[in-house]
């Protein structure tokens, strides 16, 4: 950084053949900061910076911008400020902008014979930060019994922006399994009807038939408002699932703030060595107890907050600094709201979290998990028909439901989600195909890209 004084400023103007500045009064001291030590015309950046600084200066000195135009046109630089250098710009002919004089084309316009020959210069984003890599599951060599492990995170760029930096791990899908039949949308339920009362078989089906990378066993029966099943008994279900499938698993509580710490603690105990993810710790429960269980038995912890980046930061800090959870053992769930039911908040919250992580915020650079099954809460996903009289009819819900889950997931994938907890097999398959595609791994191809223009469908 170099400080620029008034004198040097005039030097620069001289250098650029600005001989006279009319009507400018400069009072007081002027300092212009300039990146780089010398102004080199061959390098556009400092010059653009200079112009930028001049613009600020002129603004502070309450002057007009005419001088800027002159400098830039002398340098042959088009400044993005749309100043009428030659002629007023024409605005599109919307009614309210009619006032602007339309510049009539000269009667005999000469059409160009040849195209200009310009180069497109892509922008390359480089981020200082990196998202932590978190491994789930443990194979024999790591002291567990899983057949493979799943790695989340590791990004150095926005999701699928492999033109900025390669993405070491594509997002994965965990399918939900419950230890007691939950309320499910009909189009989801049909796929699990045969296994609803057997979590182990259910888990198997998710892996063998529906291609789950992981399964989540939700111990909802422990909820004091439901069966209030003791933690110890619930832990048996976890053991059953670990027996039944060889993929890494996630253990979820019932969401009861008082009971979950106990339930997850027991689950952590029985799954020692398997590096499961405990879902979840929240700010309003005994997060420390869950964190300690995770640490003690070598598991990963899911840090869950409600659509609030600051709370996410706070909880992560507690878990990392107070409970001393290792950095490679933390995943975040900033909350998924369904398409049409707060997806905008969920998307922007996650996008901000991811960008903060990439910018180097060490409280937020962790992989993100999404409870995409929440998409089924949207009535568009499950209701037979619209309750609104004037709506265009909604069409078959069997088709609406899965796509609601897909679009919810896909949107959040673009915000940076690394792991999706889902349910509908078609949604799972489609989302995986999307990850493969945007991750550059899909081999499909269409040859004639213009063909849709003439197709008679």
């Amino acid at each position: 950084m170099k400080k620029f004084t008034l004198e040097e400023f005039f030097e620069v103007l001289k250098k650029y053949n600005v001989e006279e500045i009319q009507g400018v009064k400069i009072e007081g001291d002027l300092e212009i900061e300039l990146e780089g030590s010398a102004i080199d015309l061959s390098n556009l950046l400092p010059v653009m910076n200079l112009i930028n600084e001049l613009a600020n200066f002129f603004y502070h000195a309450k002057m007009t911008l005419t001088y800027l135009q002159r400098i830039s046109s002398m340098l042959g630089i088009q400044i993005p400020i749309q100043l009428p250098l030659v002629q007023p710009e024409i605005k599109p002919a919307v009614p309210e902008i009619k006032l602007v004089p339309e510049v009539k084309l000269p009667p005999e316009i000469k059409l160009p014979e040849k195209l200009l020959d310009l180069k497109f210069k892509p922008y390359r984003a480089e981020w200082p930060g990196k998202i932590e890599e978190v491994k789930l599951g443990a194979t024999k060599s790591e002291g567990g019994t899983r057949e493979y492990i799943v790695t989340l995170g590791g990004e150095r760029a926005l999701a699928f922006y492999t033109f900025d930096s390669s993405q070491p791990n594509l997002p994965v899908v965990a399918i939900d399994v419950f230890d007691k039949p939950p309320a499910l949308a009909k189009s989801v339920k049909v796929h699990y009807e045969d296994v609803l009362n057997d979590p182990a078989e259910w888990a198997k089906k998710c892996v063998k038939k529906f291609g789950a990378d992981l399964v989540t066993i939700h111990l909802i029966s422990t909820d004091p408002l439901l069966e209030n099943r003791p933690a110890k008994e619930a832990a048996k279900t976890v053991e059953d699932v670990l027996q039944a499938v060889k993929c890494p698993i996630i253990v979820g509580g019932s969401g009861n703030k008082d009971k979950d710490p106990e339930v997850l603690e027991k689950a952590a105990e029985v799954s020692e060595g398997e590096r499961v993810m405990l879902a979840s710790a929240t700010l309003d429960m005994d997060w420390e107890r869950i964190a300690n269980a995770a640490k003690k038995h070598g598991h990963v912890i899911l840090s869950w907050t409600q659509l609030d980046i600051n709370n996410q930061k706070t909880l992560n800090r507690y878990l990392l600094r107070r409970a001393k959870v290792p950095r490679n053992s933390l995943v975040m769930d900033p909350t998924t709201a369904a398409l049409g039911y707060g997806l905008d908040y969920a998307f922007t919250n996650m996008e901000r979290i991811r960008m903060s992580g990439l910018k180097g915020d060490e409280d937020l650079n962790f992989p993100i998990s999404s409870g995409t099954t929440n998409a089924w809460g949207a009535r568009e996903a499950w209701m037979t028909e619209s309750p609104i009289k004037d709506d265009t009819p909604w069409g078959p819900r069997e088709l609406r439901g899965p796509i609601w889950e897909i679009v919810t997931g896909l949107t959040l994938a673009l915000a940076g989600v690394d792991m999706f907890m889902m349910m509908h097999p078609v949604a799972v398959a489609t989302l995986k195909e999307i990850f493969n595609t945007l991750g550059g791994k899909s081999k499909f191809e269409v040859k004639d890209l213009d063909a849709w223009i003439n197709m008679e469908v």
Partner: protein
Amino acid sequence: MTLKVKSPLEIYNLLPKTNCKECGYDTCMSFAAHILDRTAKVFDCKPLVRDAEKDPKAKEALQKILDLTAPEIAEVVIGVGSSAIKIGGEEVLHRHEQTFYNPTAFFFDVWDTMDDKKIEERCDWVVSYKKFYVGKFLTLEGIAVRCTSNDPKRFAEVAKKVSEYGKPMILISLDPKCMEAALKEVSEKRPLIYAATEKNWKEFLKLALDYKVPVTIRCKNLDLLKSMAATFRQAGVKDIVLDPVTEPVGQGLKATFERVIQIRRAAIENGDKDVAYPIIVTPISAWLLDGDNVTKSYWETVIGGIFIVKYADAMILHSTEQHVVMPLITLRFNIYTDPRTPVQVQPGLRAIGNPSPEDPVFITTNFALTYYTVESDLTSANIKGWLLVLNTDGICVEASVAGGRFTASKVKSLLEETKIAEKVNHKYLIIPGLAARLQGQIEDETGWKVLVGPIDSGRIKGWLEKNWPPKK
């Protein structure tokens, strides 16, 4: 890198500075600030507009404000009259940095070898489509007419027919003869023509100039795309839309993703004005895939979804099925909602599922997300009840309790305004778990018995089983 000098003072200096309030703001300075964040339009300063008609200096000032506040991405108008739409006009790459402005415009196709009745059906559908959402009906923008006949006469005829529906149009043909025939009929409706390519660009450039219509430039090669755009601009065409070619699957779709993002980033981050135009994407390309119609329409939705999130300003769609249209129209609304202002719903009383006087009375806030969550939790659990919606200025329960927007006295006024006491035969009010600490105060203030419900409205069903009807 952006060099736009953006300060209200800059604009203020060009305004009449009389503080006459005609624009609806107290001072010219405040008006200037609103122009800057695009919540006001310079044309609302009537004194300046009037002066501009006579006084060249005022005219210059007006033009200067327009130039200073021109968006990063050019704004292109398609169509005329009240149904005309603007595309482009964007300022940022991520919605939280400001907001996205002009929602991705949806154009549904018809083709000219379709029989007339089918064309009418499709056009009728576009015109009448409605989806209720957050208190209003979402609708569709336009119709894209494809020339599949290769017959200028037929294309012109169908273009004319479609134009009578009054919706913005895209005319699709790579053949200048067909295009010109259609333009002769409908150019005054300001359709977007699709598309100039490496092969036909000269003819299309001439058409765009002769008929003064916005033009799409279609090319996969970004050097060439940029060169064409710059050539067109230099020749006097201002209304340009870029089509970097949508490849529907595999590496091709991945490359499309990259092209679209690179174009927008170059425009906003590098300030490359030659590509600072709206982008059009064609999810209809999914219909080039093998597979059944559900597969194609699902994949069309996927392509649409990706590019609603990432920078498409317009798209051409084929499926008119609800499993395509409904998710895309909803996603578009979500992504283009201004994140700076919380979305609110009308405060008041809602009857959920035809409730009777015995049914419970709940209260929640008018923060749209809270409200719709509670509402859909109640309906999906088949709970009948009365839902009171308190005006908390669109703030959620937790924050509004803490910030004094959810108070006992406001609850009291709401009970009175909605006359809920006349609709039910009990005096029990169920408040959200997150508002538990107001229980005593509300009881004292209103004389109603207050029950503290669950923190998550998803648990209301279980809660009601235990607590409703209340034990006396």
